């Protein structure tokens, strides 16, 4: 039973108890968000000497640039690719580790490890392995398999590289959640199905996957948000949006114009647009995907 407390007759106490949390939220979430919203309507210099209220000029500058629409397109590819590969790989590893009889903890540790690597460091690592002139893996691809690998000039190679690098890091996270979900499935259900003659694939499709669908849905939302917001470090270390804008995703543009370019108005306008996009996307996910999710009783 869930314990419930009724504050109907003690409203001031309720607000008092909520106050610390609200204060933290206000200082670290609402206030910066309001600042960003305000800045999106101004043009100012980084030192704060001049600030002009310009209405929608920043949004106009963003939305009339052909590079921005290229960026939206690239973001769609990147986010789909990263989310799909990170979730699928996490699920795959979890299913395999769940079936392993011996050395489970070793596998688990090895798969969780990448999560501890800082994004920028991961980017440098990947660059060093895949650099077309001196990267060990790049040379193997070129000389061993005859693949003309060049992420510095070929946009598809670059996109593939950043997707794999971004997903690689997230696989660990997904793996942990999937493994926990798998281990929560009662063995009796699986055994009953097995006795009825269902093979491993049939069991996975009809029993396991529906039972872990809440976890899958949760990870889908988290991974989409990760791909949209949290990947600028990897892009910066690997491609800086290149070649020729091929990996110039929206959040990297926000970072590049804001943190590197110090154009706060332009960067804020883009982050407002990005926020609207992601809120919309998450709403769609909840509206249409969540219907298929079966929560436990």
């Amino acid at each position, binding site marked *: 039973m869930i314990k419930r407390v009724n504050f109907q007759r003690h409203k001031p106490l309720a607000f008092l108890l909520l106050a610390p949390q609200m204060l933290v939220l206000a200082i670290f979430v609402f206030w910066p968000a309001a600042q960003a919203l305000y800045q999106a309507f101004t*043009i*100012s*210099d*980084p*030192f*704060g*000497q*001049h600030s*002009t209220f*310009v209405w929608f000029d920043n949004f106009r*500058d963003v939305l009339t*640039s052909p*590079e921005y629409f290229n960026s939206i397109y690239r973001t769609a590819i990147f986010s789909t690719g990263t989310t799909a590969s990170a979730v699928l790989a996490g699920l795959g590893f979890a299913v395999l580790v769940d079936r392993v009889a011996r050395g489970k903890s070793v596998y688990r540790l090895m798969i969780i490890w990448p999560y501890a690597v800082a994004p920028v460091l991961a980017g440098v690592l990947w*660059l060093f392995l895949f*650099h*077309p*002139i*001196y990267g060990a893996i790049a040379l193997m691809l070129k000389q061993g398999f005859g693949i003309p690998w060049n992420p*510095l*000039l*070929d*946009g598809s190679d670059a996109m593939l590289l950043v997707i794999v690098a971004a997903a690689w890091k997230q696989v660990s996270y997904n793996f942990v959640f999937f493994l926990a979900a798998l281990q929560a499935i009662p063995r009796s259900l699986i055994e009953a199905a097995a006795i009825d003659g269902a093979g491993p694939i049939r069991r996975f499709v009809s029993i396991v996957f529906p039972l872990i669908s809440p976890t899958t849905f949760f990870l889908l939302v988290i991974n989409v948000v990760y791909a949209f917001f949290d990947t600028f470090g990897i892009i910066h270390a690997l491609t*800086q*949006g*290149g*070649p*020729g*804008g091929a990996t*110039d995703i929206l959040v990297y543009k926000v970072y*590049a*114009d804001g*943190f*590197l*370019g*110090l*154009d706060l*108005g*332009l960067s804020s306008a883009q982050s407002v647009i990005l926020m609207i996009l992601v809120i919309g996307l998450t709403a769609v996910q909840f509206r249409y995907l969540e219907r298929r999710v079966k929560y436990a009783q």
Partner: protein
Amino acid sequence: MRNRLFGALAGMVAAFAASVAAAAPIEIQFWHPTLGPIDDALKQQIESFNNSQTAYKVVASGRGTYDETFNAAIAGFRANKSPHLLVVIGQGTQSMLLSGAVYPVQDLLAAEGYKIDWDNYIQPVLNYYRTKDMKLLSLPFSVSTPILWYNKDGFAKAGLTRPPVTWDEMGEYLTKLRAAGFECGYTSGWQQWVHVDNYSTIHDLPIATLHNGLDGLAATFTYNKTDVVKNIARLQSWVADGRYVYSGRQGSSATPAFASGRCAMMTHSSAVFSSLQASAKFAFEAAPLPYEAGTTPHNSLIGGGALWVLKGHKPEEYKGVAAFLAHLASPDQQAKWHKDTGYMPITKAAYEKVKAEGYYEKYPQQEVAITQVQRGTPTLNTMTVRLGNANQYVAALEEEMEAVWANKKTAQQAMDDAVRRGNEILRRFERQRGN
């Protein structure tokens, strides 16, 4: 363990007692980017100043990359907690100049009674950081210029005995080097700095109107109407046959491409000398950047960090800042800095001193940058590039250059697009400053 801890504590107490007894020195905060292997050289510079007198103590604080350092300084300025001294990359000069946070170095030194004969400095190095009426804004610090690096062993294999002088000659050299077995003829660090900025200054071509922005914020890019386009088109043809291999943006990827022996030639900052010395397993030499046949080369453009003095501190602290800057500019310190780091010395005296020691006979690579920045007479086209929002317009230009190397655009199309995007970025810079 416990003993060591106790020892450290005792040491701290002793140091504290000593500092109280000797009246604490005035602290001068110095924020700089962490520069990796040469942080030691910086530490030594500061220690030598701190040990040379007792009135002031410079406290250095590494703040990450140039961009991170600049962001930290902005946050500091907005919270009224600026350091006294700040290292800013040369491209940030215009932002600093208009920040309202700066105490020009030349004014400071004059006000503190230092009679400095600026003619004794290497002029093209100072020029980059000067206003149009020749006032020095910041003291050049980690300064370099791009030069041509070549694999001497590789040259011998291809039967080449001296470095190429013109770009067309370089093209012929590269064909020979490719035939001699080099998979990559040539690569470049900072491709935009080399092939747009420096190509323009060396040939006395404008990069933007109003003397590259020196005369005002209304400047617009013009390099799509000069020989820069021809230069980019030539490189595009070199990409097709492996004579030029693109190694990535900025500088860090080109160095290993050359140092691993895969690329026979490289244009890159003169300051990569120490890292090449550490990593190249072949004989390498340096030469001035090539130029077009039939032209007389002008000075090349420098780049790199400069020391800015920030406003809002006490008069007695500025005395210390001035003393520190004077210490840094002394021939001994400059000579040591140059030799330790590969950055350029800023005074003629330091250069003469290093030369008299016979250092350049042993390391001729280190002299190339200094002679190269002094080729020809500086003009208003070759003095500086004083444009805002450099990070953004450089990124746009690099993107367009990549489109050329990937054969998605012609050199002319790409330079036109880069100029259009660059001009939009410059107009935003103007609006940011309330214009």
